[in-house]
């Protein structure tokens, strides 16, 4: 099957590449653009380890054809820290030990980032609902919830 032109901006970098129509967005991100921070944990769209921001909202990059993302702007975990400066969510994840094996962490960070962008001060219930799709087998989620809550409470305002 002949490849088609995909124009996509990932972490503020514009790319033009040719991909087979059957390629999933996550495959293009990991294999073509070598952004392996985005993980895959299942084949049934059930674990959300592959979560990325697409035009500002969270999506499962394993459940979107790359061609469907033509002309969009994507942010992956590699795009969260700018110029080596960690984002508030990232710093809070560090302080609260909100990760263990780290394999679900990229998707979790993206979900958390999207939530804070949309609702700067979510309730605990809203936090749980926002990361409901992201499976973490290590932490039991509560440290992640604490980390997001801390950001919501303004503990990581951009200053230092």
């Amino acid at each position, binding site marked *: 099957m002949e490849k088609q032109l995909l124009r996509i901006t990932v972490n503020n970098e514009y790319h033009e590449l040719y991909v087979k129509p059957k390629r999933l967005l996550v495959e293009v991100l990991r294999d073509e653009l070598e952004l392996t921070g985005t993980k895959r944990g299942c084949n049934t769209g059930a674990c959300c380890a592959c979560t990325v921001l697409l035009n500002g909202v*969270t999506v499962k990059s394993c459940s979107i*054809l790359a*061609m469907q993302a033509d002309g969009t702007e994507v942010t992956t975990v590699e795009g969260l820290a700018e110029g080596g400066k960690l984002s508030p969510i990232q710093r809070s994840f560090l302080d609260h030990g909100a990760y263990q094996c780290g394999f679900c962490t990229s998707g979790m960070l993206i979900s958390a980032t999207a939530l804070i962008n949309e609702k700067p001060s979510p309730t605990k219930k809203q936090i749980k609902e926002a990361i409901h*799709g992201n499976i973490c087998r290590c932490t039991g989620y509560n440290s992640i919830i604490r980390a997001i809550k801390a950001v919501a409470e303004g503990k990581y305002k951009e200053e230092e």
Partner: protein
Amino acid sequence: MIRDFVYSKAKTVKEALGLLEEHKENYKIICGGQSLLILMRQGLVAPANLIDIKSIEELSYINFKPKDGLKIGAATTHSEIEKSSPVKKHYPVLVSMEKNLASVQTRNWGTIGGNLAHGDPAGDPGPVFVALNATVKMANKERERTIPLEEFFIDYFETALEDGELLLEVQLPVVPPRTATVYEKFNIIKNDQGIVSVAVSITMEKKGSSCKDARIVLGAAASIPIRAKKAEKLLIGQKLNNGLLEKIGKRASKEADPVADIHASEEYRRHLVEALTKRMVRKAWDQARKPAR
């Protein structure tokens, strides 16, 4: 593994219908693809042509008119419905239904049209829209037609959509006064598909004393979302009391036609239909009796 296919992205409905016509019998339509891509990855679906309607802007809208009600374009995402203010105001049950549908990620990309066209009896929108008396608009290259959503569902993963036909719009009539519509699904993990789900819509008589009209819709309790019409009849024209509520629950569970799977036995599903029907009828009744805000 996903088999290769020819991919074409339609920008307008006209273009899409043209492509459907061209590839008759040998295509699949993808919108959000949240269900379709899983089937394709498992090799259960392997179309020669994939027609992408996700980016057809004229299919993505939510319009409300006080006279003729709500119209939702087929390519509207679940999140857009969940966050729409007219929906919040006039059809609040849709908001709670959407909030409990799968993950945020799925709702952000998955569409209402795709969900209904998938024809999964365990889907959430089906029962609720049927309870709200929804109709759906479809078109092929020649003509347009509109049918009640109830008649849209044919069997497991089978709908009334004909070859070459595209789902365009879901339409909801204006909600009559003194009406309440409620929905609940039973699951073990929040936002999973319901092991059983029940939507109930009740309209009270003017005096607010007895039931004027009722719709009881069961999800995951048969091969399609079904109305428990006998149970509805028990309620219409009556005042609700515990004795009647018991009868309605029992009747609904008789009308259900569930199958056993790894998540629940047939008996347990019938029990759940009874329990949830009772809960939802009670809830809708109490809400419908409250004077409108």
